């Protein structure tokens, strides 16, 4: 088997997951922030600011999951049963918040239920995505290329902590998105919310960065072994600098930069996780190569992806561009 095909596919799926985490991250964050303002007008503005995008954003989740099935069927067939309950819980959360985008408007003035569903669905989905990540980091029991653990193996203090960290992280993305896209009371609210969230996210990143090498030998060697440490030390430093800069931008009234800072923080955290786990797709047993689909299948999908992914990125960028700029106070698309 060509050794590089699985690497290309790991890169592509890794990109899709990163796109998903950032794009759906900020619109899930809007839902997470919902309970913290009681004003209907602010909630309207918050929801409107992501309404044209959420569906496209969530498609990256389908590409991540579907792509995993295409390129690494064994990994897909191990991870999904291993995280059966959190995956289905996350999907149900996404169902509730997804329909809220439409139902909430049609239901007015009786839209309370969909405020709750939007916030609750977003929080549940974000939290469970975090616990799945935490569960993957701590490792999955595999025998004969099949999941060999129990239904609650993923449930540990560590995975719950990562779940909370992801909730805070998405809320930070959502708050900084609002700082960029809205004005008036909504933007003020978002700016107030962003600072403590930033502190929480930085603290959570620090905890995960210390917890994983302590708990997992393999990760400690990856980071602190020589010569790796000489190359890797800038990663945490960059994260600290980005955190500091974002704090400063929030305080000095910048509009777009806090969102950019939050994205860079996410990418650095993501890079850290990749460094910790490459080349495992299902730590600690199955690598890219162990779980890869037949080369003919990887090639067949790669040929189309080479042409289609730039096209997808192109019109995604187009839609963000046509809906660009600050929303006027009380402006909506409905």
């Amino acid at each position, binding site marked *: 088997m060509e050794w590089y095909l699985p690497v290309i596919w790991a890169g592509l799926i890794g990109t899709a997951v990163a796109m998903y985490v950032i794009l759906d991250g900020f619109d899930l964050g809007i839902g997470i922030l919902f309970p913290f303002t009681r004003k209907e007008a602010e909630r309207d503005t918050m929801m409107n600011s992501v309404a044209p995008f959420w569906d496209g954003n969530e*498609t990256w989740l389908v590409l991540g999951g*579907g792509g995993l099935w295409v390129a690494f069927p064994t990994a897909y067939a191990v991870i999904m049963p291993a995280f059966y309950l959190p995956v289905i819980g996350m999907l149900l959360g996404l169902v509730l918040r997804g329909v809220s985008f*439409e139902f909430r408007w049609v239901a007015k003035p009786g839209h309370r239920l969909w405020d709750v569903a939007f916030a609750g669905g977003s929080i549940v989905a974000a939290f469970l995505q975090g616990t799945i990540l935490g569960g993957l980091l701590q490792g999955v029991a595999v025998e004969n290329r099949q999941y060999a653990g129990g239904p609650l193996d993923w449930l540990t203090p560590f995975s719950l902590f990562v779940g909370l960290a992801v909730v805070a992280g998405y809320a930070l993305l959502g708050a900084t998105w609002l700082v960029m896209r809205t004005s008036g009371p909504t933007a003020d609210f978002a700016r107030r919310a962003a600072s403590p969230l930033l502190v929480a996210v930085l603290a959570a990143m620090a905890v995960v960065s210390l917890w994983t090498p302590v708990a997992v030998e393999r990760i400690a060697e990856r980071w602190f072994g020589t010569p790796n440490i000489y190359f890797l030390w800038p990663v945490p430093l960059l994260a600290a600098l980005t955190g500091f800069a974002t704090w400063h931008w929030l305080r000095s009234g910048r509009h777009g930069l806090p969102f950019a800072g939050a994205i860079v923080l996410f990418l650095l955290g993501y890079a850290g996780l990749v460094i910790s786990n490459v080349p495992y797709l299902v730590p600690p047993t199955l690598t890219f190569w162990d779980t890869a689909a037949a080369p003919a*299948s990887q090639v067949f999908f790669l040929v189309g992806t080479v042409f289609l992914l730039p096209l997808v990125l192109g019109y995604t960028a187009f839609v963000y561009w046509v809906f660009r700029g600050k929303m006027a106070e009380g402006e909506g698309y409905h």
Partner: protein
Amino acid sequence: MELDPVLLARIQFAFTISFHIIFPAFTIGLSAFIAVLMLLWRWSGQEKFRTLARFWTKIFAVSFAMGVVSGIVLSYQFGTNWSRFSEFSGNVIGPLIGYEVLTAFYLEATFLGIMLFGWNRFPAWLVTLSTVLVAIGTAISAFWILSANSWMQTPAGYEIKDGVAHPLDWMAIVFNPSFPYRFAHMVNAAYLTTAVVVLAVGARYLLASRHVEESRTMLRMAVGMIAISAIAQLFIGDAHGLNTLEHQPAKVAAMEGHWDSDEPGALVLFGIPDEASRSNRLELAVPNLGGLILTHEWGGKYPGLDTVPDDELPPVANVFFAFRIMVGIGLALIAVGLAGLLLWWRGKLFEARWFLLPASWAWPLGFVAIIAGWFVTEQGRQPWLVYGLLKTMDGISPVPGASVAGTLALFVFVYGIVFAMGIYYINRLINAGPKGEAAAAPAGVPSRPLSAAEEAAREATGRPRGEGPGPSFGKPEG
């Protein structure tokens, strides 16, 4: 009590996919209808087409949201509930799903944003183009997912190595033997189903003497579409049935309740298939007619269920009854189409209460037929998951029955709420009507985009209605 994980996983999948299929079936048809309305509006300049397009776009938005979220669930359920199937078939049908995401989902999701929220911001051509692209996206999506499903029915272009399917010929995989028939049958069903909904809404308004001009347009378009697509469905369905007889004879035998290969097939009008005695109870049948339909020859014989061993027998009664429901509705819709055409020709389509009253209640018919049809084809494939290659019981995940039962209960609960409320809201939008802009956006919603300012801008710039008052696309914003 030991929970049977296979049965529970099947019930869960049947539940989530039956729920899901309602919405794509509707949105495939509705997006095409909206695109046609937009093109008619651009071409004729008649305001009623624009009014109708806006009205149906609101209903489309609610349905599409339900379709999207229930579809994301499915893309993960292959792995959560059917992991061994996922590994077995991933090399072959994984890429088809992948292409569905890349060619269809992004196209739909991205241009949906403009279609729903661009009316007051962008020029009309961009909104029109978006509706066309969304309609194309829904059809492309149907192409890939039906190709994947058809491969499970009639696998082709593969070899089995190390217990896993490997691709040999992608053209043979994508265009596997049952795919062209299934694709035509399903997409036509989607258009037919949507036309029935449009008919029902138009009839409902006319009976109440509301929105008369728009309703007449809806009625004419719907009757024409129903007449064409219901009659076309008869021929497509016939061809699909012959194809199934060639590749999955056990399914056809179950559909017909045909137990004895030596007898010319009878057309069983009613009966209760009994798997224990391998015969139909209370049978009422027309001799030879079934054979005529399936072999196109009087006294024609085709394989009966006696050729199928006990452990490969599909659930005959379910397939048998579901098939009769589907065909019964199909025939009823042909009658609706022809009656409508006749009334239209006589100039009585808009007054005939005997036609309008039942038509106003007919909206669920297409959906029931679609779900019945899927029950026929999916249960008719049992006990196989991939026909002849992988049995359903060998495809499931190593997940305890209790997990599947618990999540099944959650699915029923959440989907029950979403479905009930969705239908309720769609009904509310229909009640508000095509001109009910105010009703559809109840008082207190500060989200009407600058309507007054727009009117002023329109007058000031002298731009024709519908060209969109917003900053013209391509020009930098002030």
